[in-house]
């Protein structure tokens, strides 16, 4: 989707602000969000691509003005409700409870006894799959990226659409995020490292002697001769 998350190449954000001696977490809640994500992925409540697409659908104004782990919280909460694991009204009641009782421990709102954690399936799988598919492109091949941007999840950034590059390497066969984020299966396909000259991306304003590398799935790419 042409979403607010797709930030590459935008102007106007000002300097990169750094924090000296930054702690791992800025508040206990950030660690809770990480723990929730770990548990959810390990139990396959959602996959990595659904997770990213959950974040991408945040309100765009809020996205830019919220801390990073709130992006996670927002996306994870959206997925839990969409998948019917958490009821939106129940969640709203819990929110109201803790808003009134900020010091209450998380278990304070739980009525009844806590069930033991269920037996966990093995942790979430990585993205590499085996396949006898033959990669269409080889290192050195000139390619164009597709110009279109689907309304759903995709990992081809806006700044690199409809651009000419060349294949740097093939990374093997990887799960395809554009389908895996939408419950349409993994549909694994070859993944390539593609090199772009900065001038091909940014035109005359590009900084000198710069190249950019993106990891792109085969269906994002067209042979250079076909794109003409």
């Amino acid at each position, binding site marked *: 989707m042409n979403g607010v998350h797709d930030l590459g190449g935008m102007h106007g954000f000002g*300097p990169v602000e750094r924090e000296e001696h930054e702690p791992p977490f800025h508040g206990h809640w950030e660690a809770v969000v990480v723990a929730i994500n770990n548990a959810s992925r390990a139990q396959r409540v959602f996959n990595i691509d659904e997770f990213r697409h959950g974040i991408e659908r945040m309100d765009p104004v809020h996205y830019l003005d919220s*801390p990073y782990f709130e992006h996670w919280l927002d996306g994870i909460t959206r997925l839990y409700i969409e998948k019917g694991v958490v009821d939106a009204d129940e969640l709203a009641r819990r929110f109201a409870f803790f808003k009134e009782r900020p010091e209450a421990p998380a278990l304070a709102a739980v009525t009844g006894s*806590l069930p033991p954690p269920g037996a966990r399936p093995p942790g979430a799988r990585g993205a590499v799959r085996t396949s006898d598919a033959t990669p269409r492109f080889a290192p050195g091949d000139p390619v164009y990226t597709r110009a279109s941007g689907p309304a759903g999840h995709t990992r081809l950034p806006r700044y690199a659409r409809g651009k000419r590059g060349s294949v740097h390497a093939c990374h093997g066969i990887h799960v395809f995020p554009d389908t895996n984020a939408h419950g349409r299966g993994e549909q694994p396909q070859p993944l390539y490292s593609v090199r772009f000259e900065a001038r091909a991306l940014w035109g005359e304003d590009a900084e000198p002697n710069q190249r950019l590398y993106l990891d792109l799935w085969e269906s994002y790419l067209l042979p250079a001769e076909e794109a003409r």
Partner: protein
Amino acid sequence: MSKNHPNVDPYIVSRVRALESLLLEKGILDPEAVDRVIRQYENDTGPLIGARAVARAWVDPAYKRRLLEDSTAALAELGLDYDMLRVVENTPDVHNVVVCTLCSCYPWAVLGLPPTWYKAPAYRARAVIEPRAVLREFGLEVGAERELRVWDSSAELRYMVLPLRPTGSERLSEDALTPLISRDALIGVAEVSLPATVA
């Protein structure tokens, strides 16, 4: 800036606790899980494994080759099971820098938690279009004669930079080199330099 100190935002905290309590009740979240996460990222990881791998690559050319060509095997030698890493090498002619414009992909397993600036819009927007200007803000000048390679982590691979070994460090051991290698150098926004007392 309030967004850098989100721990004081009661709205967010209440949202987190609401979800946390429901997932505890459903048995999805183990009551010990949060403490484990805190222990893991406050004590166990950090840029240490990435720095150790780089230091070993500097003193052992065969290890360096493995790190660049088969990072999974190279990291396994350090006790880490991680098959997603690609290591890109700085040379006198090439400087590398890593970003994720679409989210904030980062090699947590070797570098620990990403700094806030890495996840913030300014870095994600600018690192691809004006990387030299961004690096200058970090105090790193990359001349036009040196090729600058930007790696935008758009898939499930994670990138780490193998920085240049500082001149004058030839006699230092792997153990002495490791603490000199900062997280920022492994992202590519800094070089590694010798402390004045060693140089």
